[in-house]
């Protein structure tokens, strides 16, 4: 039926179209220009503005092209005097209340109303009431926030903003209030936007065709035609949103817009993507190399700094051996940067002591998924979310950490009726809208998952055929899991039995079910076990290896996937080729023309202790800020202070850079060429959206200079060339070259130049382990390393919040973000607050065995009783003073998610 073509006449010519398309789309295909104002493809189909009207033979009225579908034999006239008169009048009506202050409007040149007025030659609407428009401005009370400005006078009630809020942001913070000529776009009860569910993603602003909604920080920063635009990739989380950045004549970035036809984000951005670019403009940017003399930095020339660094590194290497040096790659730097820095560690320094902050977030994923599936990456693309019938989210506060992905998840729930299960100790925003929320105690994931799987096994809901054909280890697994009866599990996790059973059934019986997890799973002393358990759940139910079925760890940093892919890890070269594997080593030795170390190196989480004990003497860090992000940072700082030499490449004088002997000013991601690999393995092209500071250099360039000085020449001309080199050495990246990434990037594995990349890993149950089968690993529940006791009665769990990012060096230099959330706070349940006599906004001191911080209390419905939450973005109240450095024995990831703490009210 649907592929049957129908005959339609447009302006006298015959055309054939598939059934069910609108007149507007038919005209678009046939190249007829129909003006629109309220229409926004895939977002708004209101049919309200009356601009797209056409004549349809036999109809008594003009027809709206945007909503009326073509039918067999339809005769359409797109241009006639009646059509033109109607469009013109409707435009004049839209302009009846619209102030003609284009001269001072930020949307000038970017305004669909203005364009149409130009096209129709409307200088001044015959209905314009200047008094009303200029002398009695309409009042709005809800735009008191720092992000979004609303001018109701300019609003033409097209409702694109409301539709974007509903269908893109999925929050419905704004709607239409009142009726008729009094209708307005408003928040419920005209509440300030910040008191609604608004997440300030500003999808509404991007959807606005006029200047009614504007990003506040851009006001007065230049009109669109005076800004230069660049398409690049957002530098915050690992979603990899494609973004257009606009810079002004002073080289400042002033505006960000999501790219509408992006397969990754479909035009969406989150508040950080939308507003968070501002840090690159900061006056705090490092603009010259610094060398520390007598405890103080002095400005230095590049020659001096390179010379000094290479000299010190060589001395230390000679004196203590190469393994006395540690190198840090960075998940915020490009693939090319990371490739070069790990090559530097291995080929130039001669050590495998190279790591990146993935250690702190997804090391357990690499270990766990590597062991279970043979590949340590998300199995399915973001666009595949829509194919899932059940979405199982565990340990992921994604509305704050991966907001755009959470929007796709909520969209799938709302629009397609998919079910959402959220397992999280906190009642996160996603948990609030979930169909089932399992609020287990932090650190009890294995027990929960084993209990869930026992239900699945007992009820016969396992996928026997899949297990048989594509896995091994099931029998051993069943023995272990059978110990986790529902009563025990309920007791350990603090979750109602029925809820666990319901979730187990919902997940297991779904035609298509997919899993998402984040730090709530990985950042535990049992992180690898957690990941294995998650994998087991997918494997025993066969929910993996096809559309709508998979395991998707969401990566937290823009290039955390890539930094690992590039081998900025102590045990692997690029593409997870093991350093202990002689064949791999030989390949790299040949390519790099040096002898390479044959033992795995040290993970960054051991750098602090090693430095303290004197085993590690120098660290060369490309970015990274371990003195904010490592657990128990007081202890780590002692270690770093004990180093003989510390060199840091940075864009700001971070907490770690402050301690360095040499600091190199580098380029920020928005100034770079190169690639990021996002959470769905998509290698994406970065393009410089602004000039880097004159005296700063690219990260790979700095490493190359040091390397060359040390005596290992690196003469890369650009990032493109680096990619070509690493592609040759990396089977999964072999077909990836910059020129191939222009459109929407390529998902690895991409083994050849004509391969189009891999959307779904392990497709058809063909796992990447050597025998092609997945491993179902038996996992026992082990308690967290530090549990509450009399002295420290609360469980502290740490993480991120929506408005800030990691160590805060970027987001806290974004004025609007830092104005909105200027200080750290602890989330505490109502019950606990009451028992401690703590009121909302009281100051409290939170202490663990490692230290104390003072911060504000927020009494919240998010945490479970006896669980508290603190974010780690604020140097004034650094959560990592409190966290426990207990490591997962396999992956060496620290236990950020569980520590015992106490809370005292302070005056």
């Amino acid at each position, binding site marked *: 039926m649907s592929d049957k073509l129908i005959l339609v006449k447009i302006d006298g010519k015959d055309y054939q179209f598939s059934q069910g398309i609108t007149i507007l789309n038919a005209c678009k295909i046939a190249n007829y220009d129909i003006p629109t104002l309220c229409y926004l493809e895939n977002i708004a189909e*209101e*049919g*309200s*503005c*009356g601009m797209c*009207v056409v004549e349809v033979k036999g109809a008594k*009225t*003009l027809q*709206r092209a945007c*909503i*009326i*579908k073509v039918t067999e034999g339809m005769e359409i006239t797109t241009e006639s005097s*009646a059509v033109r*008169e*109607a469009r013109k*009048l*409707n435009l004049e*009506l*839209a302009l*009846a*209340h619209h102030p003609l202050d284009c001269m001072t409007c930020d949307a000038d040149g970017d305004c669909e109303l203005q364009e149409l007025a130009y096209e129709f030659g409307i200088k001044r609407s*015959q*209905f314009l*009431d200047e008094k009303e428009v200029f002398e009695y401005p309409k009042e709005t009370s809800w735009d008191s926030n720092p992000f979004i400005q609303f001018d109701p006078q300019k609003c*033409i*009630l097209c409702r694109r903003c409301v539709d974007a809020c509903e269908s893109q942001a999925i*929050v*419905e*913070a*704004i*709607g*239409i*209030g*009142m*009726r*008729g*000529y*009094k*209708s307005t776009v*408003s*928040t*419920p*009860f005209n*509440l300030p936007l910040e008191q*609604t*569910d608004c997440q300030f993603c500003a999808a509404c602003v991007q959807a606005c065709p006029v200047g009614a909604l504007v990003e506040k920080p851009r006001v007065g920063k230049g009109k669109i035609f005076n800004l230069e635009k660049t398409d690049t990739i957002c530098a915050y989380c690992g979603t990899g949103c494609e973004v257009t950045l606009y810079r002004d004549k002073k080289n400042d970035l002033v505006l960000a817009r999501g790219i509408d036809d992006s397969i990754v984000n479909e035009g969406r951005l989150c508040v950080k993507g939308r507003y968070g670019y501002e840090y690159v403009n900061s006056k705090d940017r490092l603009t010259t190399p610094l060398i520390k003399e007598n405890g103080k930095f002095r400005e230095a020339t590049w020659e001096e700094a390179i010379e000094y660094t290479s000299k010190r590194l060589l001395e230390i290497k000679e004196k203590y051996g190469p393994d006395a040096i540690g190198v840090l790659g960075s998940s915020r730097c490009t693939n090319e940067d990371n490739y070069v820095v790990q090559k530097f560690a291995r080929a130039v320094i001669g050590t495998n002591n190279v790591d990146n902050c993935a250690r702190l977030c997804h090391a357990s994923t690499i270990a766990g998924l590597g062991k279970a599936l043979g590949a340590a990456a998300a199995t399915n693309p973001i666009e595949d979310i829509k194919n899932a019938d059940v979405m199982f989210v565990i340990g992921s506060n994604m509305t704050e950490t991966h907001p755009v992905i959470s929007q796709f998840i909520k969209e799938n729930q709302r629009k397609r009726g998919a079910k959402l299960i959220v397992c999280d100790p906190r009642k996160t925003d996603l948990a609030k809208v979930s169909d089932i929320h399992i609020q287990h105690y932090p650190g009890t994931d294995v027990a929960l998952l084993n209990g869930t799987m026992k239900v699945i096994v007992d009820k016969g809901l396992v996928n026997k055929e899949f297990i048989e054909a594509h896995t091994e280890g099931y029998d051993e697994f069943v023995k272990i899991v059978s110990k986790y009866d529902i009563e025990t599990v309920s007791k350990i996790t603090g979750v109602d039995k029925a809820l666990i059973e319901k979730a187990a059934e919902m997940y297991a019986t779904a035609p298509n079910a997919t899993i998402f997890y984040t730090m709530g799973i990985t950042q535990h002393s049992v992180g690898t076990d957690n990941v294995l358990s998650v994998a087991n759940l997918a494997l025993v139910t066969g929910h993996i290896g096809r559309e709508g079925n998979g395991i998707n760890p969401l990566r937290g940093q823009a290039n955390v996937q890539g930094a690992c892919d590039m081998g900025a890890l102590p045990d692997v070269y690029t593409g997870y080729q093991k350093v202990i594997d002689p064949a791999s080593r030989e390949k790299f030795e040949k390519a790099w023309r040096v002898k390479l170390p044959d033992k795995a190196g040290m993970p960054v989480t051991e750098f602090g202790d090693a430095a303290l004990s004197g085993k590690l003497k120098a660290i060369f860090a490309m970015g990274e800020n371990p003195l904010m992000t490592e657990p128990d940072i007081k202890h780590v700082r002692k270690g770093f202070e004990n180093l003989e030499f510390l060199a840091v490449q940075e864009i700001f004088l971070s907490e770690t850079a402050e301690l360095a002997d040499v600091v190199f000013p580098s380029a920020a991601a928005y100034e770079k060429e190169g690639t990021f690999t996002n959470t769905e393995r998509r290698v994406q092209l970065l393009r410089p959206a602004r000039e880097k500071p004159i005296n700063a250099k690219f990260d790979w360039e700095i490493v190359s200079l040091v390397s060359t000085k040390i005596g290992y020449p690196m003469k890369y001309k650009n990032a493109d060339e680096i990619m070509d080199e690493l592609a040759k050495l990396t089977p999964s990246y072999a077909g990836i070259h910059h020129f191939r990434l222009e459109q929407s990037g390529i998902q690895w594995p991409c083994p050849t130049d004509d391969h189009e990349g891999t959307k779904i890993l392990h497709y058809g149950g063909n796992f990447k382990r050597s025998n092609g089968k997945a491993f179902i690993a038996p996992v026992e529940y082990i308690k967290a390393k530090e549990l509450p006791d009399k002295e420290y009665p609360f469980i502290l769990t740490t993480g991120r919040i929506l408005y800030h990012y990691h160590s805060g060096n970027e987001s806290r230099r974004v004025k609007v973000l830092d104005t909105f959330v200027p200080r750290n706070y602890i989330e505490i349940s109502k019950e606990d607050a009451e028992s401690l006599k703590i009121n909302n906004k009281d100051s409290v001191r939170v202490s663990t065995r490692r230290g104390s911080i003072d911060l504000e209390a927020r009494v919240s419905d998010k945490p479970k009783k006896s669980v508290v939450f603190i974010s780690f973005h604020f140097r004034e109240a650094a959560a990592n003073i409190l966290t426990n450095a207990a490591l997962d024995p396999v992956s060496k990831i620290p236990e950020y998610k569980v520590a015992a703490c106490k809370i005292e009210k302070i005056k």
Partner: protein
Amino acid sequence: MKGRSLTDALHDIQSGNKENYIPEKDALTVSEKSKVSLSKVYGFATFYSMFSVKPRGKRIIRVCKSLSCHMGKAEEVIEKLKEVLGIGIGETTEDGEFTLEESSCLGMCSVSPAIMIDEIPFGNLTVDQIPEIIKKVKSEGSQEKIYTEQILPAQGRVVLKNVGVINPESIDEYIASRGYLALKKAIENGPQWVINEVKKSELRGRGGAGFPTGRKWEFTAKAPGPQKYLICNADEGEPGTFKDRVIMEGDPHSIIEGMIIAAFATGCNNGYVYIRGEYDLSIRRIEKAIEDARSHGFLGRNILGSGFSFNIEIHKGAGSYVVGEETTLMESIEGHRGEPRKKPPYPPTFGLLGKPTVINNVETLANVPPIIANGADWYRTIGVTESYGTKLFSLSGDVNWKGVIEAPFGARLSYITNEFGGGVKNGKKLKGIILGGVSGTLLTPDQFDTSVDFNSLATIGAGPGSGSIVVMDETRCIVDIAKNIAYFFKYESCGKCTPCRIGTEQVYKIVDRISKGRGEEEDLDILERLGENMRLTSFCPLGQTAPNIIVQSIKKFRDEWIEHIKDKKVEGGSNER
């Protein structure tokens, strides 16, 4: 539908609230319970005129400002109320006792001017009565109903045969007058027979459009899927129209029986009667009728042993004219703002909650039992070709006798106004009538020979519409009438589409300007162009028909308009809020 509707929930909150409004915290509770976002709840609450999100007085006084009451000097009533209460429109007395609001047509056109205090209507008001009423209501509450509806003596009545004859609250009296026999007959003969009979009768929808009812039913009967809905559109709101109210108040079972037969024929298991919130007595009568029908086995499971089950729920409106449009009405039941849907798809295949839905007007459904009981052939003996049966007319304005009459199709307009209506009041000459409500047609005495039926009216560019006839005598100022109508549409436009939202506002602005002696001749051209644009490009019938009377009045009374403009006449009273 699961649970209670959003309208019901908000009605409950408001009636349980001391200050007669919907506070934010209660809206939040509703939002959480119903999983409807707070902004949607707010958007809903602020759309309907009977809801308020701001505190109001203990009692709400609604003054009808629509055409018939306006002609009956509603403005004087408003002025007196303002004076007595010491407040303006939209304000609350200091003692928190009364809030004064204006309202669109309350359906009491035959007893204009009219007001409602809470749910109690007061008609045939004189300015002198007002202090007394306020005093009495304050001390004793508003209990009395001080007007009665007039119906002309029974003569060839089909739809109104029981009205004024039987006790509307007694199902026994309805049954005694051959009630529910049609249902039994329908069940005996089966759904297809019913559809055939209705098709054969050529019954046409009485809501205005005149679509053949039998065909509508057939579409839905043939639409796939087990879940189908039947809706009785009792959201009568067209100014000058009150005939549906008269049926609901006078013979509710005839509607219920019509609905059951329609549902049986089309395979609907759930039905709604969407009654406008202002029609309190109608709601109570229909409620009682449903209860009694259920207890007599005419409603519920396995009706009369037929295996057919059907239930009816009442949906109480909350103040919106546009909700009378069928897709808008369904949106409203679903808990959305009263905004129209795009068509196609049409309700018979995609209606309430996306399911096939039959939606018929009250009068249409009340025609069904007599057709089934007496047969299509009998029905076709009444009326004229392609317009069979009778039509109810609501007569108001400058006419001697006001009320509802039932006349067979084919009667002359002059016969209706003169024979039934007793001619123009006070012996004045006739200026014209507004037929079919303010979205209908303006007819002048030269057109009074026209037979009232679909085809004949079509030849003069008219239609029976809602069947209301507002008579204007020679002294009426056409600009004043136009201004009142323009105000009505500006107030009732849902605001969704630009041509209507701003169009109705601009039309009012221009007419108002003219009425205040500040008009210019070119304003008339603008009105005509704007009107044509609204007709051609408004999203739904409200905007498409809003300019009808105004544009027609310019065509028919251009001289009067021009005179008004040239002489800078100030006339017609204030329509400002």
